[in-house]
């Protein structure tokens, strides 16, 4: 059940430069929220900015009825959001989207988060571990100061590896290389879940299909309504039928058909 409610901000802090962790009192949301879903936030009181901003549900604390979001300031909306303080009210819409699909039979779960993409993956790791899966997490960041969630994932009991593009912390290079190594070294996951920059998602989709394991990617697109009504947020998804083996596709709504899609079904043009 999707709700449009005002919730209280319990805390807000800048965890790494320009990235904020916000805790919301939202029992109505936590009740039904699934890992990979998001909320749609009205960041301003007025028309500037006008539209809501989609932000993933980072952590779900069912007992306390608390929802966490982790967001990066990139423009007007997220800037206003970062300026909110404890006690302020937030007008949100959610929980929205389909969320990740953890198969019961899966034993090994690989979670790959690049940059702020980590935001949508913590709740997923928590749930996977709750279900008794073996969980590995690969976190990618530009440099040491920007590494997100290392502790949080560890404390859940997941094996965590870190890659920084400049090598200022742990492994140097690309997160996708590390993924390939893990697989070559024989740790073949049953499912790969990922969120982050498009090129990374694309590469991971390739890797997953090569060793044909189920891959699920969380996509982003500019949104209007967030509830499937305006058709503003679409991405290219393959349709079953091909005509003379040219890929056929439809435009699916990230807000309701996604944000999580099967990696194998996404068409990665541009």
């Amino acid at each position, binding site marked *: 059940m999707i709700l449009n409610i005002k919730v209280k901000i319990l805390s807000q802090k800048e965890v790494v430069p320009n990235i904020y962790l916000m805790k919301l009192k939202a029992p109505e949301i936590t009740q039904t929220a699934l890992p990979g879903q998001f909320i749609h936030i*009205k960041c301003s009181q007025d028309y500037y900015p*006008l539209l*809501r901003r989609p932000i993933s549900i980072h952590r779900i604390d069912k007992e306390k009825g608390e929802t966490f979001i982790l967001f990066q300031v990139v423009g007007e909306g997220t800037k206003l959001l970062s300026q909110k303080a404890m006690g302020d009210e937030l007008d949100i819409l959610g929980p929205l989207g389909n969320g990740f699909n953890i198969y019961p039979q899966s034993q090994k779960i690989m979670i790959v988060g690049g940059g702020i993409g980590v935001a949508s993956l913590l709740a997923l790791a928590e749930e996977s571990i709750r279900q008794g899966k073996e969980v590995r997490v690969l976190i990618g960041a530009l440099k040491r100061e920007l590494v997100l969630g290392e502790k949080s994932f560890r404390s859940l009991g997941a094996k965590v590896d870190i890659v920084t593009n400049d090598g200022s912390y742990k492994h140097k290079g690309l997160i996708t290389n590390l993924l390939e190594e893990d697989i070559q070294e024989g740790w073949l996951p049953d499912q790969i879940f990922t969120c982050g920059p498009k090129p990374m998602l694309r590469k991971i989709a390739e890797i997953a299909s090569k060793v044909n394991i189920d891959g699920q990617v969380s996509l982003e697109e*500019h949104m209007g309504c967030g*509830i499937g*009504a*305006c058709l503003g947020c*679409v991405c290219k998804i393959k349709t079953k039928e091909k005509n003379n083996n040219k890929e056929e596709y*439809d*435009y699916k709504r990230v807000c309701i058909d996604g944000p999580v899609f099967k990696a194998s079904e996404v068409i990665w043009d541009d």
Partner: protein
Amino acid sequence: MTKKPQLEVEVGGIRMKNPVMTASGTFGYGEEFSPFIDLDKLGAIVLKGITLKPKRGNPPPRIIETPSGILNAIGLQNVGVEVLINKKLPYLQKFTTPVIINISGDTLEEYVELARKLDNISQEKGIAGLEINISCPNVQKGGMVWGTEAQLTYKVVNNIRKVTTLPLIVKLSPNVTDIKVIAQAAEEAGADALSLINTLVGMAVDVSLRRPKLANISGGLSGPAVKPVALWMVWQVFQTVNIPIIGMGGIMKAEDALEFIIAGARAVSIGTANLVNPKAAIEIIKGIEEYLVENKIKDINELVGSLKI
């Protein structure tokens, strides 16, 4: 205690509980909003623009925010009339609110065939009227041209008029030199009502990529930014035609809706506001009622076109 004011209006033969409708394309097929509002409380529901065959629409990004407005280039993505009839309308029949179908076509023939199809099943599927979209700026062929030349407007409306007895609402484009001329053509061609405005053509540029922000290059501007233009056009058309006007363009709150009604709109449509606040339409109905009570106006119809100049 004061007696409740009378909110009922009639628009081109369509009776509504109140003057607040939902604008095509911003309210999906209605069902999307049922978690938030009671669809029975709306004046009327106008569905996403439909075409004869399903339409895939434009590549993303399709929506870009601009100061107090949004640019959209959906490209009329829709399920096609067959699916609309069989999958979407049944749900809406559970409600007493009039359902209006917004129709588009690339060719005159498509418009006409679509109208005929809908006319045939209008009884059984509960269709209260048709809104003819001759003003969509976001499709290659057809679309807006029908709404930018009086003769073409007359032609498409007149031909549709011949195949259906359903109330016909013609939706006008603001991207014209003189909207009064187009409005008159639509009236003479047999329109029962007019709705205005559709979106203003606009664009936005990403200066770092030096690319248009919309994949479609241009899009339709809507939201508070366009309200002054929409109000002026409603006022102009109100002084020109005798058929009722459905006013829209940037209505976010009751006060905005009242501006349109005072300027001559018999009813109003809520568009972009639905994307920001799914309860917008209901809150606006409430606000209008409060205004009538405060100002001791017994019947909303007294307010229509009451602008003092």
